[in-house]
């Protein structure tokens, strides 16, 4: 970074970057291109550009199949889980970062360990528990189990954010007569807004992407979330690759758009949250 690059270095570096770009972009491009092909061409016409481009796959996906219902389910589940977890997490993160009390360290450790506990370990006992409280095959049940990963993730990342906000500001407000809660809601949370947005995006996308728990807890097609619906498309007898790719594009675009819009915050938040604590 200090050194001006020599011409030879430039040639090598930029060729490597172009190669890398190809490897990254090609699968994404291929997904798009197949989603615009008619079934016959997918198998017979290997051209990279669709020869008879059509939006038929999308039209069928949204009219003949219940993909809109799946999208609605996903938005409901991911949205609610995000709202709940960001709300309770920002209170918890504030408490853990700013207030001194007994047991605080242990609670911090609990959050970190639950953040690292994989759902592959939890889905079996959770399936017993959810069945017992009759929340199986409901979106509420799914929202509830999504808190297993969203609450620790949000809390852990928000703790990083709150640490970066100087405590002087709220102390100043409290000297001026505000209570601690007023200071939290009027001073700290507005300052932490970029952090809340980043954590919201990350929580929403991880709930949007979740497959395993949704596969276990949702049994009726009308309640399937997007990943579950698509995974059933690829395990059927006939692979309708055009529609599968149209569904994949539709599922990826909202999330990638969110990432693009919040990229700066998300990357910062992740780098800070995952590695620096």
């Amino acid at each position, binding site marked *: *970074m*200090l050194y001006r*690059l020599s011409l030879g270095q430039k040639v090598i*570096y930029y060729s490597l*970057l172009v190669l890398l*770009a190809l*490897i*990254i*972009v*090609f*699968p994404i491009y*291929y*997904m798009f291109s*197949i989603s615009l092909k008619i079934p016959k061409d997918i198998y017979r016409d290997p051209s*990279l550009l669709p020869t008879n481009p059509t939006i038929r796959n999308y039209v069928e996906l949204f009219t003949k199949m219940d993909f809109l219902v799946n999208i609605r389910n996903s938005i409901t589940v991911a949205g609610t889980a995000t709202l709940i977890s960001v709300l*309770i*997490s920002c*209170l918890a993160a504030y*408490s853990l970062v700013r*207030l*001194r*009390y007994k047991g605080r360290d242990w609670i*911090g*450790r609990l*959050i*970190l360990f*639950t953040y*690292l*506990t*994989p759902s*592959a370990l*939890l889905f*079996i*006992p*959770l*399936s017993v528990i959810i069945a017992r409280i009759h929340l199986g095959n409901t979106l509420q049940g799914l929202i509830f*189990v999504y808190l*297993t990963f969203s*609450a*620790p993730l949000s809390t852990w990342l928000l703790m990083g954010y709150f640490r970066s906000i100087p405590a002087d500001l709220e102390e100043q407000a409290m000297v001026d007569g505000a209570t601690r*809660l007023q200071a939290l809601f009027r001073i700290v949370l507005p300052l932490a807004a970029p952090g809340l947005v980043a954590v919201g995006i990350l929580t929403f*996308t991880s709930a949007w*992407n979740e497959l*395993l728990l949704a*596969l*276990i807890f949702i049994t009726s097609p009308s309640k399937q979330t997007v*990943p579950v619906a698509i995974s059933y498309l*690829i395990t059927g007898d006939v*692979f309708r*690759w055009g529609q599968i790719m149209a569904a*994949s594009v539709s*599922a*990826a675009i909202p*999330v*990638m758009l969110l*990432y693009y819009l919040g990229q700066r915050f998300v990357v910062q938040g*992740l780098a800070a949250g*995952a*590695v620096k*604590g």
Partner: protein
Amino acid sequence: MAQHVAPELPKVTVKPRRSGLTNEQRTTILGYALVAPVVICLLILVVYPFFFAIWISFTDRMIGQPGKFVGLGNYAYLIRQPDFQATVRNTIVLVGSVQTLKLVFGLGIALLLNQQIRARQFWRGLILLPWAMPGFVAFITWKLLFHPQAGALNHILISLGLVQTHVDFLSTKALAMPSVILASFWRGFPFWVITFLAGLQTVPNELYEAAAIDGADAWRRFRHVTLPGIRHVILVVVLLSTIWTTNSFEAVWLMTQGGPSNATMTFPVLAYFGLQSLRIGEAAAVAVSLIPIFALLAMIVAKMLQEQD
């Protein structure tokens, strides 16, 4: 004036507003109240199920029946099962190779992006793409890429003359695991690049300058300045990602479902099959047998992350 005001001040600040609580007690109560919702949530949803899973793994529980205590019976049974043995082997191969690939290429790409290149922001945004797309979408797309007739890989290999006939990557025993490794690598490396880049930016420039003055070449600067500077970041990413990769379900489930003949079977997929066949005790034992390794990794990560605070 001042003499009149001064004696009144202590009264105002010391006297509690309500009840007889001290400031310290009030902070404690507020602290617990704010942290309580998350803690209760996690006790019910993570801590209790965690221990419940261990208990279930010691029983012969089936769906709908509580089952009875069988001690280590499930584990003794699993160890003899070829599919469990395959799972252990596959997990070592999968995690070992994916992590090695991500470490080597992740570090290489991070160093490349840390150079004086044009449009750095653009390249970083581009690198992030595989990771910004949903995992399930990425793996379904790779399943398509590997497809014998519809997949692009076959078209490319054939047009380059590297193979004569279509290869069925995911159904061929020797090729299934490398295919899963390739797809997992593609999806996972951006996270490594981004965190390595963040780490590289914390290495002080003065150290490079000093090394350059001492006549250190690029390799020595990397070996003695860069690596020690980001050692901590590297370790945390390797450990975190090892936990995630070991427990990732989507890649294998969507691409191969563990096949052909267990060639790509991993812990979460085997446990999922156990649950589907209603044998919860066994399924739990599959998942729980990962706890010792997972706990060790989590403890090291926790220690490293908390040390930095």
